[in-house]
């Protein structure tokens, strides 16, 4: 695993990402972030709070589908409560993440774990869009007494695991051999 990541880093170093990262670090925005001690910590705080909002929403939605919580409302009702929080949370994550990249472009862009995390984020977004559509459609045709199928429940659970893997990636970015 260590060798694989090391080779990944070596490859990243041979790409245009190096010039891109150096170019970003020359921008005035990057300079502003670097010269303000609290900028990075505050973007990280916003990032963590947005994970809490989005992951909390995903958790409550999954618990409803698994019939563990929220049973007094129909699935479409619960979906209308939590899906917007999931998506606004994700948008906040992208924006705060953007500033974190601009502040530390080499640490992020020349980092194998960063790119693994980005691939997982894209997978999460695509899978969540499909999941949301499928759940809402099935729940609406199924009526008030609809119960999620085994496939829907397994997907709900696996999406939470994917969230956890992305969080792990976020933490391990700081420890990757760059």
């Amino acid at each position, binding site marked *: 695993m260590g060798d694989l990541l090391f080779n990944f880093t070596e490859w990243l170093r041979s790409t245009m990402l190096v010039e891109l990262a150096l170019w970003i670090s020359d921008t005035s925005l990057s300079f502003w972030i670097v010269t303000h001690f609290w900028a990075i910590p505050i973007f990280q705080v916003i990032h*963590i709070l947005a994970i809490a909002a989005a992951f909390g*929403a995903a958790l*409550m939605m999954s618990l409803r589908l698994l019939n563990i919580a929220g049973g007094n409302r129909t699935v479409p009702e619960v979906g209308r409560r939590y899906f917007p929080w999931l998506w606004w949370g994700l948008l906040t994550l992208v924006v705060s993440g953007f500033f974190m990249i601009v502040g530390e472009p080499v640490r992020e862009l020349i980092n194998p774990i960063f790119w693994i995390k980005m691939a997982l984020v894209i997978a999460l977004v695509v899978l969540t869009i499909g999941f949301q559509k499928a759940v809402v459609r099935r729940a609406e045709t199924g009526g008030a007494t609809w119960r999620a199928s085994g496939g829907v429940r397994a997907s709900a659970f696996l999406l939470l695991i994917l969230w956890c893997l992305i969080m792990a990636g976020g933490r391990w970015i700081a420890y990757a051999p760059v």
Partner: protein
Amino acid sequence: MMYPEPTNIWQSLEFSSLGIYIAESTWAFPTLETFHVIGLVTVIGTIMVMDLRLLGLASGTVPVTRMSKDTLPWTWAGFILAAITGGLLFISKASSYVINPYFLWKMGLLVLAGLNMLVFHFLTYRTVTHWDEGVQGMPFGAKVAGVLSLLFWIAVVFFGRAIGFTLGFYY
């Protein structure tokens, strides 16, 4: 001998075999941090859901008692995970943490968040049957508890993150 003889309780923790193991291992500290993050976002994510209900801003069709029952087990599960992993992170650098003002602020705010929860649960919550289904007319005590909870937990995250940026500053 690699480590000096401990002269206080924090050094005893730090130079315990567990403390040394976490500090020296390449994977232990980041792995504990990962589970700490998963625990704390679960705590704050579910508390936010409850706080917004108390403020009448979201989930208006869910009775407060029901919302409490749906979220609280997950809040506690997340809290236990964050507390255990946080405790293990702490002992690996105990003497650096106890002199870090941000760490002390974080502990203070956790106490305030806990007191806020106790006041809400043992005073405000006693009359919950009168406002269980309420949205607009939530009692003042419930709204204050919701706002304070949001503020305290945001501050806990801020001070938690600040520790990581200032650990070497104080000695």
